[in-house]
């Protein structure tokens, strides 16, 4: 992939389109939009190289607000559309914006297969654990017991875990961030961009209208320290207001300990994003909730394989010639 370095320095404003943003006031999507615009401006890639692809749902209005190439497609299919775009032109930086219903319910199959192929596309999943655009039905990430318009007595479904799902599907980059963690989100998005291959970022997002407060234990300033652990490669897993807590491995499970009381710093698990086993265990945790890059491994991308194969075959057989194609097999001449 060759990236042209943009001579003109871009700012966040260059990435804002002229369309009025129409999410509900207070929706977590605003913060994500703002961060994405800011991050795009810093990546050193000209505007025309970005393509933002979405499916259906509140989050999927996203491309209209980005002054890049954009495609608001159909429910759940954005990863497939994005794969086609990337294959047709590997030079483009292709981003999928999707939601929990879009990516994990109707589009589950496409997410799985995009992850396994490892096309270099970035998938941002805004997880608000509800269907917003259709006005409040339970989603595949709604917790059991949650009361919604379609589950008035409480959901009887078991939710899907987006981190586990994408890890299991073979994603080469799996991360989580939160709508209100602006700088963390920016770092995570940039890491996703720098990753060569399929990158999946779950962004916990607050839907003020239909599922307000879903993530409050993790987002409220006074509580978040005790319930969120930041994943940093090579660093021990510590959290708490004074970093007084940590995570240790005990009997094959992760457990919270108080430093100095239950364990020492050396006992803590050190984050290693190259370990799929650790990534799965971290994916299991709800309290504290890990944010950051769970897993990252470098593998050849889908489009690399594809184009390399095209080049290899060209080298072996020569550039395809229509005449030879037509005349392959048994022919006969009539004088």
């Amino acid at each position: 992939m060759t990236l042209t370095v943009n001579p003109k320095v871009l700012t966040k404003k260059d990435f804002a389109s002229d369309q009025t943003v129409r999410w509900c006031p207070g929706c977590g999507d605003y913060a994500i939009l703002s961060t994405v615009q800011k991050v795009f401006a810093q990546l050193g890639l000209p505007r025309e190289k970005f393509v933002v692809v979405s499916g259906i749902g509140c989050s999927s209005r996203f491309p209209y607000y980005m002054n890049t190439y954009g495609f608001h497609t159909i429910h759940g299919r954005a990863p497939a559309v994005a794969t086609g775009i990337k294959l047709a032109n590997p030079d483009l930086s292709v981003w999928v914006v999707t939601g929990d219903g879009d990516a994990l319910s109707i589009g589950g199959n496409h997410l799985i297969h995009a992850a396994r192929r490892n096309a270099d596309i970035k998938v941002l999943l805004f997880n608000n654990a509800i269907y917003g655009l259709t006005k409040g039905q339970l989603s595949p990430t709604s917790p059991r017991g949650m009361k919604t318009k379609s589950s008035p007595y409480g959901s009887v479904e078991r939710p899907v875990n987006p981190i586990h799902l994408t890890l299991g599907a073979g994603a080469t980059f799996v991360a989580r961030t939160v709508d209100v963690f602006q700088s963390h989100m920016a770092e995570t998005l940039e890491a996703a961009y720098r990753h060569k291959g399929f990158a999946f970022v779950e962004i916990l997002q607050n839907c003020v209208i239909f599922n307000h407060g879903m993530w409050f234990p993790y987002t409220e300033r006074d509580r978040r320290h005790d319930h969120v652990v930041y994943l940093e490669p090579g660093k021990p897993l510590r959290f708490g207001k004074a970093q007084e807590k940590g995570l240790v491995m005990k009997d094959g499970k992760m457990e919270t300990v108080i430093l100095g009381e239950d364990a020492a710093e050396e006992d803590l698990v050190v984050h290693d994003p190259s370990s799929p086993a650790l990534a799965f265990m971290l994916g299991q945790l709800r309290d504290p909730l890990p944010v950051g890059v769970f897993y990252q491994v470098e593998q050849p991308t889908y489009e690399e394989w594809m184009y390399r194969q095209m080049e290899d075959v060209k080298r072996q057989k020569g550039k395809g010639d229509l005449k030879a194609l037509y005349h392959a097999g048994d022919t006969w001449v009539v004088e």
Partner: protein
Amino acid sequence: MEKEAPLEAPVWQRVVVRFAGDSGDGMQLTGNQFSLASVLAHRDISTLPEFPAEIRAPAGTLGGVSAFQIQVGGQDVLTPGDQPDVLVAMNPASLKVSLPELPRGALIIVNTDAFTPANLKKAGYTTNPLEDGSLRDYQVIPVPITRLNREAVKDVEGLDKKFIDRSKNFFALGLVYWLFDLKPDPTLAWIDRKFGKRNPAVAEANKRALMAGYNYGITAELFQHRYRIPSVDFPPGTYRRITGNEALAMGLVTAAQKAGKMLFYGAYPITPASDILHHLAPLRHYDVLTFQAEDEIAAMAAAVGAAFAGAFAAVGTSGPGMLLKAEALNLAVMAELPLVVIDVQRGGPSTGLPTKVEQADLLMALFGRNGESPLVVVAPSTPADAFDMAIEAFRLAVRAMTPVVLLSDGFLANSSEPWRIPDPEDIPPIPVRHPSVRNNGGRFLPYKRDPETLARPWAIPGTPGLEHRIGGLEKEPETGNVSYDPQHHQRMVKERAEKIERLAGVIPEAEVFGPEEGDLLVVGWGSTFGAIREAVRQAQDQGLSVAHMHLRYLNPMPRNVGQVLKRYKHVLVPELNMGQLAWLLQARYLVPVEKLNKVQGRPFKTVEILKAIEQMVDGR
């Protein structure tokens, strides 16, 4: 050197031959070789393979019969033939399956060695048809093929036992070559090419089997006569045999190259369309990127993405896949992106008859999407025509920035005919324009239409300054901004329809075969071309006032269709469905039409159409 046939050899204008046996008997190979030898001897042919639906049906059963029918002629051959004049039956099951198709007096070559009590039982025979007199209306030529063949190959050195009986189809083929006065040389050469290096013993066995069969014909004096078929005066050129699926694959590649584009082909395995994928997958060096998607939906969605990014994108599927593709196809209608969707139709509804032909997806192609969703529909009429129509489909797609549905079917896909190979230089380029500058002063308007074609500009990602957003929501004209304004919706709906209608101005008028006006016009579309044309020709030979119009463009229809329909007293529409084109013609042109419908998973027989014609014209 070789003995003349015992009786004088009459000249046959056409003969229909059917090779039938167990799916392990190599009947497709045999049929293909016979086709090759025939065309190399300058006979015209049309072929139809029939595979069992199950991959490995139990050997010897009716479900396991594999057959290959071919019509060979000394004049224009348009169909694989109504009824076999010659049947080669390798076992009881294949005899039983084929017999209902045979006219009285047909020649049946049977492998008597396969008529064992066990095989007879598997085929459901309680008595041996070779002995019980039930075949007295046919000329049965009993040949102990298995034993004669074992004898022929017994001295081949190093031949694995399991290959001994596998060569018996070549014995049968050799015998038929003699019967048809065809040279075995092309098959000998083919055997060398195919097996010579890999397995010389097998090559030797197959060659000996072939020649033993041929010589058996000379010496055994089994036949009353040989079939002498005159050769056809083909226009000069280089020829090959081509199936509909091969033709579509080559047409797609050609279209992309003629536009200087990569071909993106998305597919999910489905019968009978998968062969298109198989033909395209090895063509990486032609800038062909085949994408085997996780499902039908993704194949279509990825093609939409590839088209947005500027590739020539196509997908191929069959009815059940077409349903799943409707959603993303409709997005391409709304986003106004050019791409080609091939539907190789098969019997439905639902899973239906996966390996059998039907033409029942026409109305789905036209109307099977939510909202007002006009697109172009074309349908090749012969395997060779599929090549031209694949190119034409892309030409129209790009011209009007629209998806085009190309309707093939299970018969067209697998049947073959001789194809005069074109010079690629003679195929005109497909002009594609990707704008690089803004079309409205300082702004780029992604839905500002070309005044002539009403196509919107195909600006592709990566172009500086033309950043824009498209999607499935309704738009404001020109800007493409999301709009639910009632007037905007009405205007956009009209424009999307109008740009398709305007293509009628550039597609050719429908040709009429026969009198300009008269008693009856037979109207068809798709793979029924051969059967209809042949029937109309025979009716004309009887002096009936009948003409044939075959529609290769179904939306928009050629501009003269309405006029042509009105010049005949009656209109007959034969279709392999319950009357979908008939319905369309009635709705569009308000003309009464008679329908002739067949939904048996099989193509029309010429005689079926001829009968309908005769009934309509002179009440016979």
